[in-house]
C-alpha cells in the first residue's frame, strides 16, 4: 500500500510538470499577450514591461525560471493584480472556494444519494419518476440560469438573501445550491443505477435467504456496495467543486479562485494562468489518489499490494 502511494505521488509530480509545460507553451503560442490592449501601449512602455516581467527572455529560459521558482515555493506574480504573489492570491481565494465547494458537495450527496436510493428501492414508483425527473431537469439547467433564477426569486422579489459577496452564511446558500444541483442530479442517477445492480447480486439474495433483517441488508450489503461507483464520480466532482466555478463565482461575486483562471486568460496574466492550472491539476490528481485509496477501505476485495 505504502509503495503504491509513493509511486502515485511520484507520478503526480510528473503529471504536474507535463501540465505546466503544455500550459506554458500554449500561453505563449496563443495570439495576444498581456500588453495587447484596444488602446495600444507605447512601444517603449511594452519594452519596459517585458523587461520587468522577464518576458523579453527566450521561451525556454522563461519556463526554466518558472519551474525553478516553483521549487522555491514561488508561483510568480500576477500582472493584473498589483503584482501580488500568485501563491498569496490562490491562498486568499481557496478557503472561500473550498467552503463553497464542500458545502455544495455535501448538499449534492445529501440530495443525490437518498434520492437515487429511494428511486431504486421503489423502482417504477412515483418516487422513482420524481427522482428521474429531478435528475433530468437539474442536469439540463445551466448553472448561470439557475443562479439568476434564484437571485430573481430570493433577492429581487422576496428580498430574503443578498445577491452575492462573501462573509456570511446567507451569502453561501444560493451559490452552493446552484453549484450542487448538477452533481446532485448526476449522483442520483449513478446511485440509482448502481443500487439496482447491487440489489440483484447473489450475496444480497444469500443474505435475504439467511434471514438477515431488511435494514441490515440495506445498509451493510446494498448501500455500501452501491456507493463504490458513486465514490468514483464523487471524487472528480469534489475536485471540480473545490477548484471553483467561474460562472457561479462570477455571478455571485465570490472572491474565490474559480474566477481567477478565466480572468487570467482574458488578461493574458501568465502568472495567474499557470498558478490556477497547476492548482487545478494538483487538486484533480490528489483527489483521484484519495479516491483510489478509499476504494480499498470500502470494498475489501480491492487491494493494491
Amino acid at each position, binding site marked *: 500500500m505504502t509503495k503504491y502511494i509513493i509511486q502515485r505521488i511520484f507520478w503526480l509530480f510528473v503529471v504536474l510538470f507535463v501540465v505546466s509545460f503544455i500550459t506554458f507553451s500554449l500561453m505563449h503560442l496563443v495570439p495576444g499577450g498581456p500588453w495587447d490592449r*484596444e488602446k495600444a*501601449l507605447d512601444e517603449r512602455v511594452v519594452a*519596459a514591461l517585458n523587461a520587468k516581467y522577464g518576458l523579453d527572455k527566450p521561451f525556454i529560459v522563461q519556463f526554466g525560471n518558472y519551474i525553478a521558482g516553483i521549487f522555491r515555493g514561488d508561483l510568480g506574480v500576477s500582472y493584473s493584480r498589483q503584482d501580488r504573489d500568485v501563491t498569496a492570491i490562490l491562498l486568499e481565494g481557496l478557503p472561500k472556494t473550498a467552503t463553497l465547494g464542500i458545502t455544495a458537495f455535501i448538499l449534492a450527496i445529501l440530495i443525490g444519494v437518498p434520492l437515487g436510493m429511494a428511486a431504486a428501492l421503489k423502482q417504477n414508483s412515483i418516487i422513482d419518476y420524481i427522482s428521474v425527473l429531478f435528475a433530468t431537469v437539474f442536469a439540463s439547467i445551466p448553472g448561470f440560469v439557475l443562479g439568476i433564477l434564484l437571485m430573481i426569486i430570493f433577492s429581487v422579489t422576496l428580498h430574503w438573501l443578498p445577491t452575492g459577496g462573501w462573509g456570511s452564511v*446567507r451569502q453561501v446558500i444560493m451559490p452552493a445550491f446552484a453549484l450542487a444541483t448538477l452533481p446532485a442530479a448526476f449522483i442520483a442517477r449513478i446511485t440509482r443505477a448502481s443500487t439496482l445492480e447491487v440489489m440483484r447480486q447473489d450475496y444480497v439474495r444469500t443474505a435475504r435467504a439467511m434471514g438477515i433483517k431488511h435494514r441490515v441488508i440495506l445498509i451493510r450489503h446494498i448501500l455500501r456496495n452501491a456507493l463504490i461507483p458513486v465514490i468514483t464520480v464523487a471524487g472528480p466532482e469534489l475536485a471540480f467543486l473545490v477548484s471553483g466555478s467561474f460562472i457561479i463565482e462570477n455571478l455571485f461575486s465570490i472572491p474565490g479562485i474559480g474566477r481567477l483562471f478565466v480572468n487570467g486568460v482574458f488578461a493574458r496574466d501568465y502568472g495567474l494562468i499557470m498558478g490556477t492550472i497547476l492548482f487545478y491539476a494538483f487538486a484533480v490528481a490528489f483527489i483521484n489518489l484519495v479516491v483510489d485509496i478509499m476504494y480499498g477501505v470500502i470494498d475489501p476485495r480491492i487491494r493494491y499490494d
Partner: protein
Amino acid sequence: MVKKVLALIFALVIITTMLVLPACSPSASTKEQILRTNIAGEPSQIDPNRASWSTERTVIMQVFEGLLGFNQDLSLRAIGAEEIPTVDNDGISADGKTYTFELNTKVEWSDGEKVTAQDYEYSIKRLFSPDLAAEYTSFYFDIVGGEAYYSAIDADVATKAALKDAIGVRAIDDDTLEIKLNAPRPTFLQLMALWPVYPVREDIITQFGEQWTEPPNYIGNGPFIMTEWVHSDHITLIKNEDYWGTKAKLDTVVLYMKTDINAEYAAYQNNELDISQVAAGTEASTLADPVLGPQVLRYAELVTFGFQFNLEVAPFDNKNLRKAINAAIDRDSFINNVRGGVGKAAYSWIPPGMPGYDPNLGADYHFNVTKAKEFLVAAGYASNGSDVPELRLQYADTGTNPTIAQFIQNQLKINLGIDVALEPMERAAFSEMVNAEQHTWAWFGWGADYPDPDNWLPELFGTGAGNNHTNYSSAAFDALCTEAAAELDNTQRLALWADAQAMVVDDAPVLFMQYRERFRLVKPYVKGLKYTGMDGDSPGDMFFAEVYID
C-alpha cells in the same frame, strides 16, 4: 407515512423561513451617509504612477489629488497648486518650456504630514523609472530627461541614478515645484491634472514596497481614506476628517467588484447598490419602467466608436469607397435598434463635450443611399455594388459586438449590395492583430485621456503613430499636427486642430458610428452627483466628495 413526510416538509419550510427572514428585511433608505457603487472588477493597480484603467482611477481619485484637477465642465482647477500656472503669473516661462507650481500649503497627507514639492518631485521621477514600467509614462516624455531614463531598461544602477537626477523636475523649496520641458506643450497642464503625476510618499513606498497600496499604508491627500480592501470583493473608503478643503459629505463609500452585469442589476434592485448598470439591450424597457425609468441617469462620454479601415489593404485604399460606406449606414437605426436608443450618431471624430467637436462636419455621411451610390460610382464600382469584392470585418467576439457587426453587414448588403464577411476573434488576439495592423476593417473605440484634440488626432492619424491602425498617412495632416502641438495661442491652436480634423473626416479612414453615452440607474436618494464625460467606472466619481444621501 405521507402525512408525516408532509409535516416534516412543512416544518422545514417554517424553520428555513424563520432562519432567513429576520436578518434581511428589505433595507429602507436611511439617511446614513454611505454610497455603495460598483466598479468593473478587482483593480489591476491603484498605485497612481502605475494605474491606467478607469477602475483604478475610480479608487485613486478618492484618495489622491494632484496639483491640478478638472471642473465638471472639464476645465482645469488648481487643487494641490495655489493657482494654475500661466505666463502672466510667472508660472509658465515665455518660451513655454518651464512650468513653476506654487503649492497650496494647506494640503496634507491623511497621516497629518504636509504635502511638499519634494513629494511631487519623487512621484514624477518615479513615474519614469524603467523598473516601475508604468503604463502612462509615455504621455510625459516631453519632460526633460524622462524618456532617456525610462528607456534605460538595461542600464546599471549608477547610470539609472544619474539619468533619474537629470530629469527636469525639481523642488525649489518645500512649496515650489519646477518642471522643464523639451519643447512647448500647450496641453501640459491637462497632463498635470491626471493621476500618474499625483503625489506619492517616498517614505511609505520605501518602507512597504509592493504592500504600500494596501490599507492602512495607502496614504493619500484626497477627501477619502481607504480603510479596507477585500480583494476581488470590495474596497471601503471613509471620509478624511482632516481633509484641507471642503470635507466629504459622505461618511463611507463602498466600491463593490461585481463582474456580472445581471448580478449588479439584481443587487441594485435588492438595495445592495445605489448605482448600477443595466444589461445591454434592456435600456429601452428600463426607461419605460414606471419605477426604474425616473432613476435612469444618462450623459455623454468622451468616447467615439467606429470601424477603422486598413488603408493599405484593397479595396479600403479607395477613398470614395470609404466615403460610400460612411454614407450608406443608417446610424439612427443603429442607435435605436442595436444600442437600445443609447448614444449619439457620429459623423465625425471628436465627440461632443470637448473642444474640437464640430456638429457640421461629416455632412456627406448622413444616411443617404443615393449619395452613397454616387460615391461608389466615383470609386470606380457599379452603383449596385456587384463588382465590389467581399469586405472582411473583424471584431472582438464579446458583448454586443456580434450584433453590431451583423448590423453593418446587413446595411451594406441592402443599401449598396456589398457583401461583408464577419470575422469574430478572441479579445486579446483581436487587439494584437489590430495593433500589428493585420486587420482589414475593425470595430474600435477611443476614449479621452484628457479633453483636448491633441489626444484625438496625432496619436491616431499621424503617420506611424502608436495608435494609428488605419495606416492613414497625410503629409498635410502631419504638418498641421506639428504646428498645432506647439501653438501656444489657444484660439489659433484649436483652429489648427479643426482643420486637421476636417481633413481626417474628409479622408474617412474610419466608418464613424457613435458617440458613447453612459446609462446608469441611480437611487433617488443619491443627491449631488456631478458627472463628467471623463468619469471612471462610476458616474460622478470625480466628485464623490460632494455626493450626499437624502
